[in-house]
């Protein structure tokens, strides 16, 4: 198992190197002279020279790239052009917020989607099945921020159940304060995820239920819930886990707009701020860290695969 994991980690390294090359190239994508673009149109010669030095734009490309990669490997992603804060620090402050949003959303999606998928798969063609299929197609057409806007209007403005904006850490206002700010945005993020997950569960479970061991289990007189839960679902778990891992990237993507709607100071709003200010080092850091998170999620999925399916451990 350890060999399997280390193999997967090694496979992720070249991809990560390429991602860092892309993120690094972003700086060179700036139209015209990067230093002029970053220092601003009205900058003096001195300011431009200073910016150029600060970004290391004097040195040859490969040297700059090497410097960036080696400092990134040590956890140093440069400093923000506007706040002067270290990029790693800025992202480190924001990432836990998005992580808790993502966690609550994932939990919601799993709790709703897997039973729905299971209900649909055990009665293919029934009314329940058709309702689940239509509901998931419909849910997949709702962009997270649109769902967020609807939730704000209904629950925060009309009914005034839950706060419409902001975020409080558990340490500040306790569990409920934390959760109450997260419920609506988490639903917004969870919508598409739940739909995707329900469909995947249904498909995988349908495949598993057509296997002969399920017939055997039924023939032995096991109760249907036991057959589905203990035998079929376990074998259907692999594709479900894949989709779950893929959803981590979705959380980051959805967080960008949903955090904007709910004014949550997370990773997504950091990204939007960085883009609005054209804070290139921060943008580079954001792209790099999101790739890191996605790759880590894929790695986790691979490991869980290996755990679930010993045949893959070669």
């Amino acid at each position, binding site marked *: 198992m350890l060999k399997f994991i280390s193999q997967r980690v090694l496979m992720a390294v070249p991809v990560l190197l390429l991602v860092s090359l892309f993120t690094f190239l972003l700086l060179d994508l700036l139209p015209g002279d990067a230093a002029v673009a970053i220092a601003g149109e009205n900058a003096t010669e001195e300011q431009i020279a200073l910016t150029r030095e600060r970004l290391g734009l004097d040195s040859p490309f490969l040297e700059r790239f090497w410097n960036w990669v080696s400092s990134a490997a040590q956890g140093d992603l440069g400093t923000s052009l506007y706040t002067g804060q270290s990029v790693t620090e800025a992202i480190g402050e924001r990432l836990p917020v998005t992580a808790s949003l993502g966690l609550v959303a994932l939990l919601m999606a799993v709790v709703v989607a897997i039973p729905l998928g299971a209900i649909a798969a055990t009665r293919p063609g029934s009314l329940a099945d058709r309702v689940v299929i239509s509901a998931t197609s419909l849910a997949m057409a709702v962009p997270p921020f649109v769902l967020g806007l*609807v939730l704000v209007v209904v629950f925060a403005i009309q009914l005034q159940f839950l706060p419409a904006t902001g975020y409080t850490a558990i340490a500040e206002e306790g569990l409920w304060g934390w959760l109450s700010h997260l419920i609506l945005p988490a639903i917004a993020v969870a919508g598409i995820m739940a739909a995707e997950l329900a469909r995947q569960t249904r498909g995988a479970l349908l495949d598993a239920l057509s296997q002969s061991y399920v017939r055997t289990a039924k023939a032995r007189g096991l109760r249907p819930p036991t057959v589905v839960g203990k035998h079929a679902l376990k074998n259907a778990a692999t594709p479900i886990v894949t989709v779950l891992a893929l959803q981590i*990237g979705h959380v980051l993507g959805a967080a960008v707009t949903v955090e904007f709607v709910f004014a949550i100071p997370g990773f997504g709003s950091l990204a939007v701020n960085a*883009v609005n200010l054209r804070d290139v080092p921060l943008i580079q850091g954001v*792209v790099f860290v999101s790739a890191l998170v*996605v790759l880590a999620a894929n790695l986790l999925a691979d490991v869980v695969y290996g755990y679930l399916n010993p045949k893959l451990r070669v």
Partner: protein
Amino acid sequence: MSTDGVTGAATDDGVAGDGDVIREPATPVPGTRAGRPRRARRFGRSRAMRELRRNRGVMVAVVFLFFLLVIAVLAPVVSPYDPDAQELRAQLQGPTGEHLLGTDGFGRDVLSRLIHSSRITLLAVVQALAVAVVLGIPIGLLSGFVPWVDRIVARVADALLSVPPIVLALAVVGVLGPGLTNAMLALGIVMAPSLFRLARSSAATASKELYIEACRSVGCSRWRLIWRHVLPNASSPLLVQVTFFAGVIILAEASLSFLGLGVQPPDSSWGSMLRDAFANIYEAPGHLVAPALMIMLTILAFAQLGDGLRDAFEGRGADGR
């Protein structure tokens, strides 16, 4: 296994894996209309077309999208007002006889803006899809045949796929500056790897087929092989994927414009209309409805069309799988 969905990432692997499953029947089916022998080659298509026409959801989607296209093309003719004309005495009105969908925060007619926005949204879809197709498909087909191209490009595709589309699009917009064309260029680049993978797997499967070998042995050039023989065989899964992507692009365009990073004022898209409505969410929450509905319906229509196309190409009926 069917991996359906509008969200980019999840679709990629599933459909790429399906590449070798979806193939048109090689043997002609009896019943070709007499007197039109040239149609025989396209018979596989017409079977798919028949299946499509039977699918009610798909037909509704097609009609909707066609309607949208007509509205978009005829926008200046059909919209009741100039979309940018401000009537400052009539701000944030609800629906009235004069303004069927009311007026926005600047007193502009919402219906007219909605109509003109559909133009920009469809233009955005065309732009991003063009970039994705031009980048993804030729390179993908080529790397199915040429191993050394494959080794390089497949890594690049892996790397691009590991960044969430919106984040990468944000980054490119952040560097090149806000604007719809920049945003769509970025999005096209982000979508290209999935098409690349799909084209590659189709080409790799095809390259082992007998007819390709036969073709090669009579001296076809590599380009002729790829364009005349492999591409037509790979076209159905690619078409399905492109249809799904249209929905993904609309979602991404709406997101970016909602954040103020896509289309720039005074132009508007449904996303930027939502941004305007969001600014007045306490005074006039009703203004969210029309643009949100248009975004959702269009995404839904493309998803339905994609599902229908896939089912039709795979030759299965509406058995719910």
